[in-house]
């Protein structure tokens, strides 16, 4: 018997696609947000930081439940997407992407924020005295200095999305090639008593997660410290 069925490969491919796109989107969104959090003196800083950290604490079923309701045809997000002619997001790949970005947000923002804080104000001030414009200074001074933070943010966002389960279960609908990811496929195998197939996929996940964490600590000891 082959180790993975066609449906398993579909789920693996979909999971990798979801994790890659989620990571790319998160780096784009989290960078300005983390920069702002690292440098602002605004009174909004604490509440915004708390909102960003919410997915760390909330059970994925809570996120999934609210996503299902707000993105559904009667929810505010669902009404907006319908007005834009996009239909509703649950049961679509785009819907999973939105869910994953929210679910993994703290895993991108927090390492970046700590890295930016570690960079401090001084390099940016020096760059300014050398007449670098703010964006130029940010891109050519702050970003390279915060590189370990970016590496950590990317790896953790990717790995955390691969491990997503509760959110997908709530809003996915288990559609092959669209919303059926590895974690829900494993769940299905276990419930159908297909333990051999479950073992292959689950064992693969364990190895993958171990490899990610090992790579993280070997390549960049600093970036792990940034997390703490």
């Amino acid at each position: 018997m082959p180790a993975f069925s066609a449906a398993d490969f579909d789920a693996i491919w979909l999971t990798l696609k979801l994790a890659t796109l989620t990571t790319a989107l998160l780096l784009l969104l989290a960078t300005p947000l983390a920069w702002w959090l690292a440098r602002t003196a605004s009174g909004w800083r604490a509440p915004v930081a708390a909102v960003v950290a919410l997915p760390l604490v909330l059970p994925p079923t809570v996120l999934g439940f609210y996503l299902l309701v707000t993105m559904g045809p009667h929810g505010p997000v669902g009404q907006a997407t319908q007005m834009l002619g996009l239909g509703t997001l649950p049961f679509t790949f785009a819907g999973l992407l939105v869910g994953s970005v929210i679910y993994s947000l703290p895993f991108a923002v927090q390492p970046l924020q700590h890295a930016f804080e570690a960079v401090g104000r001084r390099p940016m001030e020096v760059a300014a005295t050398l007449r670098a414009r703010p964006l130029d200074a940010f891109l050519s001074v702050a970003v390279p200095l915060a590189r370990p933070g970016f590496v950590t943010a990317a790896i953790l966002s990717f790995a955390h999305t691969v491990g997503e389960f509760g959110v997908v279960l709530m809003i996915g609908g288990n559609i092959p090639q669209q919303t059926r990811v590895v974690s829900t496929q494993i769940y299905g195998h276990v419930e159908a008593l297909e333990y051999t197939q479950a073992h292959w996929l689950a064992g693969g996940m364990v190895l993958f997660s171990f490899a990610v964490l090992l790579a993280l600590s070997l390549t960049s000891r600093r970036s792990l410290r940034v997390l703490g």
Partner: protein
Amino acid sequence: MRVAALRRVLPCLAWLLVHAAAAAGQVSVAVASNFTAPMQKIAAAFAADTGHTVAPAFGATGAFYAQIRNGAPFQMLLAADDETPARLEQEGLAAAGTRFAYATGRLALWSAQPGLVDGKGEVLARGGFERIALANPKLAPYGAAAVEAMARLQVLARLQPRFVQGENIAQALQFVATGNAPLGFVALSQVMVDGRIARGSAWVVPSSLHAPIRQDAVILAAGKGSAAASALAAYLRGDKARAIIRSFGYEL
């Protein structure tokens, strides 16, 4: 004086407690999610009539099977099928000879919108909806029955691309109830209250369109010799429980 009195009273209290516990036990039951609503009613009636209490856990039969095999301390299982209890009995994880059918499930095509589902299920052939929810047919008997019924009606190939599958029947219901799927196949018991459809529109799928959804109960190894578990098994076969079960649209 007081201490002496306490010394005499305490053993009596302890004796009372022990005997009250023996007389009125608690039975922990794993219950298929389609039977959630009737079980809650039955548990209340059972507690009032016998003094025993029920600690129910609701979920997917397949998940319960895996948990029971791995030592979950459930004393009884009310499954969504008849295969899982039989398998547990074969594997020595259930008390032999305690298996019985407690209900036969009925399937319903349901929509939260009034008027969307007609009384004959012609909406399936007519189409005009983007998604149709059902429980994963590989895992849930109600999902398998839905697929069988669609095949008999010769609409399966056309509808298959519109499937959204819940992990169990409770999730299929959730997809339809939140409006994310305009209609879907659910257990009749989930949408029926006191013999009528509580909201939205529904078609009760004729049982001739699919194999009977026979739901069996069994006392598990952990419930062997438990007075409360045997009492619940007997109660489920009694008139009061059967009336409740029927009021949710099950056949017996």
